[in-house]
Every structure is written in C-alpha cells, then in structure tokens.
C-alpha cells in the first residue's frame, strides 16, 4: 500500500509540471500586462521598464519559468505583484475558508444526493423517483452563478433567513454551501440511483431476499456497498468541480477564499499569485484522487492496490 502511494506520487510529478507549464504559457499568451495593470496606462515608460526589470519580466520566458519551478520546489512561490506579500502566505490565509466551504458543500451533496438516490432506486418509477430525477436534472443543468443569485434573492432578500455576502460567521457559510452542494447532490443522486438499480437486479440481491432478510438489510448490507463504488469515483471527480464551483460561488457571495483570490489574481494579471493558486489546486486535486483510489480498496476486496 505504501509502495503504491509513493509510486502514485512519483507519477503525479509530470502532471504538476504540465499544469504549471500550461498555466505559464497561457498567462504569457493572453493579452494584458501585469505592470500596466499595476501602474496604469499613462505611466512613464522608463518606470514601467524599471519595474519589469525588477520583477524579472524582461528575462527570456524559459528562464522565468525555470526560476518559478526551482523556487516552487523549495517551497517559495514568490511574491504577489500587487500586494508584495508572499504568495504562499496569501494562499494559506484563503485556503481554510475555501476548504470549509468545499467540505460543507460536500457534506450537503453526499447527504442529499445519496439519500435521494437510494429512495429513488428502491421506489423506482414512483412519484418521488420521477419528481426527484427531474429536479436533479434541473440542478445539474442550472449554472451555479444563476442558482446562487436566485438563492440570494429568495433566502437572503425576500425571506431574510441568511446573510447574502461576506464571511464573518458560520451562518454566512450556509447558503453558499447549499448552493454549491445541491448542484453536486443532483449528479450524486442520479449516479447513486442508477448504480443501485444495477446492483438490485443482481442474483445475489435475489439470494439475499430469498434468505428472508428484511428489505433494509438487503439494501444497506448487500446492495449499497456494491453500488457505492461508481459513486465514490464520481465523488473523486467532483472534487475538481467543487474547487472550480467554489470560484463562482465565492465570487457571488463575496467569500474571501481561494476561488475569489484566483479571480482577483487573474484580473490583476498577478502572475505569481495565479501560478501559485493553480499549482496548489492541482496538488489538492491529485491528492484527492489518490484518496479516492485508496478508498476503492476498502470498498471492493477485488481491487488490490499494487
């Protein structure tokens, strides 16, 4: 198992290199100049040149990239162009908020998604099943920013149940977590339903019924554990969706997390900050997938990690 984890981590090095390289190229290809962004359009060209020199932007691109990689390996992600603060410190400050949002959204998604999926599968073609699947389809199709604004309108402005922006207390987290979570709940519900329906039709479920077990034991002991394997895969894949989803959610709800930080960094052309956030997200994503793969082994005895 430990060997497997080490090997997986080694294999993820090229992924990290690829991600940083692509980000670096894209940043330099898209129009916009970080220095002009800092000093404004009418600044003295000499000053601009001076700043470019200071920030190392006049060096060849390959040198700039290698400098970033060598520093990153040593744990130094550079300093933000805009604030002058170390990028790692800015990420460290923003990440806990995003993590809180992502985890509460994950919790909402799993609790709602899995339970709706189970009830829908057990009562296939019932009114509950039909209506929930329509709601789920709508949930998957509706864009996060739209759902977020509607939720703000209804639950924040009209009903006044929750604050609609900022992050000062746990109460501020409820609405964003539900908005981000229900979207994933929708796809989890559909996956749980179809996986469970597949399993319910297997002979070993018929056998379990023939044994005279209660319906609850048949579903929870025999069916659900087998049905959870594809669902866990989806949960792993959704990790990235959760992070990108949090960008939009954080922006709409003005939550000072990683998502909002990356949007801000992009609009300010703050290269080191963008690079740092992307690198950090990639690492989180890789680790998330690794955890999912390891959890397979616990769910399915046929999978032995090698």
């Amino acid at each position, binding site marked *: 198992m430990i060997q497997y984890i080490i090997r997986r981590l080694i294999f993820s090095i090229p992924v990290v290199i690829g991600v940083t390289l692509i980000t670096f190229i894209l940043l330099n290809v898209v129009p916009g100049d970080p220095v002009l962004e800092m000093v404004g359009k009418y600044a003295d060209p000499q000053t601009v040149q001076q700043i470019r020199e200071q920030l190392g932007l006049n060096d060849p691109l390959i040198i700039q990239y290698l400098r970033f990689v060598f520093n990153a390996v040593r744990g130094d992600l550079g300093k933000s162009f805009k604030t002058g603060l170390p990028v790692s410190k800015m990420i460290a400050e923003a990440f806990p908020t995003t993590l809180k949002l992502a985890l509460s959204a994950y919790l909402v998604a799993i609790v709602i998604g899995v339970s709706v999926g189970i009830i829908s599968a057990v009562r296939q073609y019932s009114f509950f099943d039909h209506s929930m699947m329509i709601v789920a389809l709508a949930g998957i199709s509706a864009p996060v920013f739209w759902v977020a604004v509607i939720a703000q309108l209804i639950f924040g402005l009209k009903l006044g149940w929750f604050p609609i922006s900022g992050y000062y207390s746990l109460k501020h987290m409820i609405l964003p977590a539900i908005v981000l979570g229900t979207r994933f709940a929708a796809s989890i519900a559909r996956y749980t339903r179809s996986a469970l329906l597949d399993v319910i039709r*297997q*002979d*070993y479920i*018929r*056998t*379990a*019924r*023939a*044994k*005279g*077990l*209660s*319906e609850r*034991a048949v579903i929870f002991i*025999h069916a659900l*554990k*087998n049905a959870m394997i594809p669902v866990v895969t989806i949960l792993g894949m959704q990790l990235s969706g959760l992070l990108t989803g949090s960008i939009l959610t954080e922006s709409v709800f003005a939550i000072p997390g990683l998502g909002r930080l990356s949007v801000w960094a992009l609009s300010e052309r703050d290269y080191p900050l963008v690079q740092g956030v992307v690198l950090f997200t990639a690492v989180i994503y890789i680790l998330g997938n690794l955890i999912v793969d390891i959890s397979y082994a616990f*769910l*399915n*005895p*046929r999978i032995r990690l090698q």
Partner: protein
Amino acid sequence: MPAKIVEVHDLVKYFPIKGGVFQKTIANVKAVDGVSFYIQRGETFGLVGESGCGKTTAGRCVLRLIEPTKGKIIFNGIEITNMKEKELRRLRPKMQIIFQDPYSSLNPRLTIKDIIGEAMVYHGIVSSKDSEKRVKELLDMVGLSSEHINRYPHEFSGGQRQRICIARALSTEPDLIVCDEAVSALDVSIQSQILKLLENLQQKLGVAYLFISHALNVVKYISHRIGVMYLGKMVEAAESEELYSHPLHPYTKALISAVPVPDPKVKRQKIILRGDVPSPINPPAGCRFVSRCPYAMSICKETEPQLQEVASMHSVACHLYKETS
C-alpha cells in the same frame, strides 16, 4: 405417499408491457399460463423446456421472488400466495434457491463466512458465536476446505462457487431448494460433480429439489419426476424413466430425440421441429404447440388441450391422447 412440500395450482404470471404517454398496459407477456404441479418431501421434480418457456418464472413464483398474477401456491400445507412479505420472511429459510450463474449470485463484498452464515444467524438457527463452526461444517459437507472461510467469492472457481451457493442454501435447513439451471454454467465434468453432490445431500438431508433446466440429460439424471413446459404451459408430466421410455407429447418426443447419445454407432430418428417458438405475448389459440407440431389436427387450432392423466402417474396435454378413466 410422502407429504407434499409444495403444491402449485393454476399458476399464472403475466408481465405487463406498458406503452403510450400514460404508460398503460398494452399487452401481456404470458410467461406462465396455468401451470400446476406438486413436489413431495425429499423428491426431485425436474422442469424442462426451451429458453423462454417460463420455467424460471414458475420457479421464482413458487418462492414468491416474483409475485404470481393468479393461482395458488401451498408450501408445507400453508398457502403463501397472498401472504404478507413480513410473514413470508419467517418461512423463507425453509425454501431456498440456487441460481445458474455462480459468479453473480454471490455478493462480491462479503466473505464466505458472511455469505453462508448470515441467514442462519438472522433467523436464529444458530447464535453468531456458533455460526463459524456451522459454516465450517457446511463447507465440509459440500466438499470445500474450511480454511476458505475468510475468502471472498472472486477467489474461487465456478464449480467451487456453486458449492458455496449450495452450502448457503443448505445453511437454513430448507425443505425445498429451487435449482434454477444450477449446473448450466459449469463445465461438463464439474456438472456431474455438482449433480452427485446434490443427490448425496438429498439422501442425507431429505431436502426436495425443484430442478429447472433446459438440458434433458441432466434433468433425467437427477429427477424422480419431470414436467415438460412449452410456452408457459405444462404439456407433459411423468416419472423420469416413464417419460424417457414412453414420451407422449410430440414436443417431448422432439426434445428427447435431440439429446445427444455418446455413441457414434447408434442410429436414431431425429425429430426436427419446424419454425420458431411463437411469441408469448400472443400465443396461438388452441394448442400452443400447433404451429410446430408434425401431428397437428384441426381440433388443435381451436381447442386448448387440458393436462390429463393418460396412464398411471403420466399426464399429457394433447388431443392425440384420451383420458384413461
């Protein structure tokens, strides 16, 4: 005469076909259409017929794994046709099933110990403390090493898995086991081992089998009595030897003539049936075999023949034969 463990009277199972905007029933697949039979304690009743004739549906209806549309099922003297699932659950240990595919009928997530031990602990046949000992005894009984107790199903071969299925079925000390094509998925050499095992267990434990198969030679080997099904109907029923030596229904004759004989010198007249099995959605009026029967008469198209006893313990549903009374 030993007591009847199961009596099935006029069992009917239609599967509705729904269509249209409002999902109305537009037709029915008449999988089983008025089948009656009984099984005595410690007896093997074979049910044969080609794919789609309704034998598996009939077997599952007997255990109420599928709800019958009509008819009456009596198990151990108790009518279970309309019994509530909760009450039925208490009877379930006494009626077990072994499926065709030993790969899909064992839960991949459970160890052999749990697969075999679960039902007997659940129904209080043994305490959870003693279940391991009993599982080992059962494994021994079906010819598997008791060291395998903590393994998962995927670590076994097909034959071994079917032995696990048998041990699992035996765990609740059943009176009846429905063997639904229980050896069809296995190699011929393994088939005979499993058949021998089933036979020995029957002699030892007195369990009755409803043995469902499309392979006549297999059914002949293991069954005391055999019922032949065609398109949802029982067309002939007799004791095993009698059915083979004196088949009456033209369909049974055709089936028996199709069984390969492992001797190249034996010359036999093969009866080759024309055409395909008609659709069970819209079976022919009159005799269901009429479209393929070499002896079809005009009455066969109009009147449906009833299953009647034409010789001692030998019933047939065919207009060619008259009742012996």
